[in-house]
């Protein structure tokens, strides 16, 4: 293997994340949540390749989380993998229905329609109190792991490494997907949709594929977050959370799959420590960080890193506003 910063640094980060919980146990749940969110951010990044930004992707995060919670409730604790699977399937199913509608729109309208649909779901979660637990949400009992009942400590450890493996796997597959012909076609929706149609390809269907993939990633993240948190609330589907996903995508760098996870790790760290040590102004701190990133490093942390190491991050690291 060629020894260069571009391969060494990401490997070191993965290694550091993998061992950190052993050294500092309190970071474990935080990392689990950060990686779960990172999966959702990865979904947002998929859509950003097509130049479309959804301000409602928390919808799929929430759909999956609630589906997992219902599975857990309905089957007395449930099995972790069935919860994850049903969560993802639920978000995929919803994404087909919503997707067929929203892929007809672009830019602001695309963003706003996603926002509207997610707000409808959010409102329904709050309204149907007797089913969804209203704003208090539902508690998610600790599920079995491959049939084994575990104590909190052991389970959290298992869950953390499972999330880590899933995150790495999802990142790799998404990377492959974005580099494949259809991934590249999705990116042409951003640059020249008319020409794509003149290649005999339906831009809407292409975007729909990307939309479903992104919803699946959000769904996986949502179900994992639900299990890690032990509770699901309508907050999972709120527009501020959708905004947060987009925020993290830009922070990490929308050009690469790694950006999703680097961004979410950094975001959770800043958020947690800011709210612990500067409780009054944690939102302000996050806002200022975001402003700095956009104004001075619009391609995010991974873009900055790629620039420092003199190579382009893959697969789509074109500097914004070129």
């Amino acid at each position, binding site marked *: 293997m060629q020894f260069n910063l571009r391969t060494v640094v990401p490997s070191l980060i993965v290694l550091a994340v993998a061992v950190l919980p052993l050294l500092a146990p309190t970071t474990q749940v935080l990392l689990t949540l950060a990686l779960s969110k990172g999966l959702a951010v990865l979904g947002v990044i998929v859509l950003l390749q097509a130049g479309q930004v959804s301000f409602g992707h928390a919808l799929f995060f929430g759909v999956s989380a609630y589906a997992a919670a219902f599975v857990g409730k309905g089957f007395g604790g449930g099995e972790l993998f069935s919860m994850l699977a049903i969560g993802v399937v639920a978000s995929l199913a919803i994404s087909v229905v919503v997707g067929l509608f929203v892929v007809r729109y672009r830019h602001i309208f695309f963003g706003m329609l996603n926002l509207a649909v997610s707000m409808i779901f959010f409102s329904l979660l709050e309204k149907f109190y007797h089913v969804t637990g209203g704003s208090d949400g539902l508690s998610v009992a600790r599920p079995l792991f491959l049939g084994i009942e575990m104590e909190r400590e052991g389970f959290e450890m298992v869950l953390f490494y499972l999330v880590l493996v899933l995150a790495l796997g999802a990142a790799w597959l998404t990377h492959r997907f974005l580099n*494949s012909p259809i991934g590249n076609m999705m990116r042409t929706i951003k640059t020249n949709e008319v*020409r794509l149609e003149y290649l005999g390809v339906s831009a809407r269907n292409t975007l729909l594929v990307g939309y479903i993939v992104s919803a699946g990633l959000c769904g996986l993240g949502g179900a994992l977050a639900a299990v890690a948190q032990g509770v699901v609330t309508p907050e999972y589907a709120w527009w501020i959370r959708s905004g947060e996903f987009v925020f993290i995508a830009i922070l990490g760098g929308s050009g690469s799959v790694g950006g999703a996870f680097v961004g979410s790790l950094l975001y959770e760290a800043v958020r947690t420590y800011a709210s612990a040590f500067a409780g009054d102004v944690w939102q302000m701190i996050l806002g200022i960080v975001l402003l700095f990133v956009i104004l001075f490093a619009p391609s995010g942390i991974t873009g900055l890193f790629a620039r420092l190491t003199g190579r382009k991050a893959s697969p789509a690291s*074109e500097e914004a506003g070129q």
Partner: protein
Amino acid sequence: MTERVLLEAKGLEIRFGGVVAAQDINIQIHEGHNLAIIGPNGAGKTTFLNICTGYLKPHKGKVFFDGKDVTRLQPRHLVRRGVARAFQIPQLFTEHSVLENLLIAGAAQSRRWSPFRPLHQIPERKAMLHLLDMVKCSHIADRPVSELPEGQRKLVDIAIALALKPKLLFMDEPTSGVASSEKFEVLDIIAEALTEAKVTSVFVEHDMGIVDRFADEVAVWNRGEVLFRGPPDDVLNHPDVIRDVIGEEV
């Protein structure tokens, strides 16, 4: 005249906000020709291309391709039936390299690809490299298209259209924007590629030198009406054409 009619327009009319842009267009396009459409600005030539490739829908009239009514089809449906198009302003994927632009077109044409196999490894890669060779762009295969001069962008644009293996290719001013010193060179490359690919072509052009050199048939067009049609020598030397069309252009 027993040549096969590839595309036929009957009684097309289109309006933009109440203004009639083209009226009663009737034209047949025969297989195996390079037909040039000339006419003054605002004569509705690009509009005609937009209608024939499905980008605009006419308010009246019909378009037939291979004998079938295709009036209401979208561009992508027409492409799949064999109607391709190159653009006056090259329509490229500006975040991709030259080769990637073609690979995307190749993948789109073949429709055989896995969502997890990289674009650069598709089976059509070889054919696309050959196509780049044909348009003399092999040396810039890895350059981002956004960095290319206009002449090369035009060539890439046409190569993308050819990658779709069309039966009929529409070209909207293939040499506009190309420096006049390069025009003939660009055109020769295109002509050679078209011949090799055995494509029927229709092109809109303002430069009569180009028309003369490249077309084997010319249609003079005004407000949707075909005034003259015939071999370049006859049409371009017709006094009315010189007065009404060429006089304005040259």
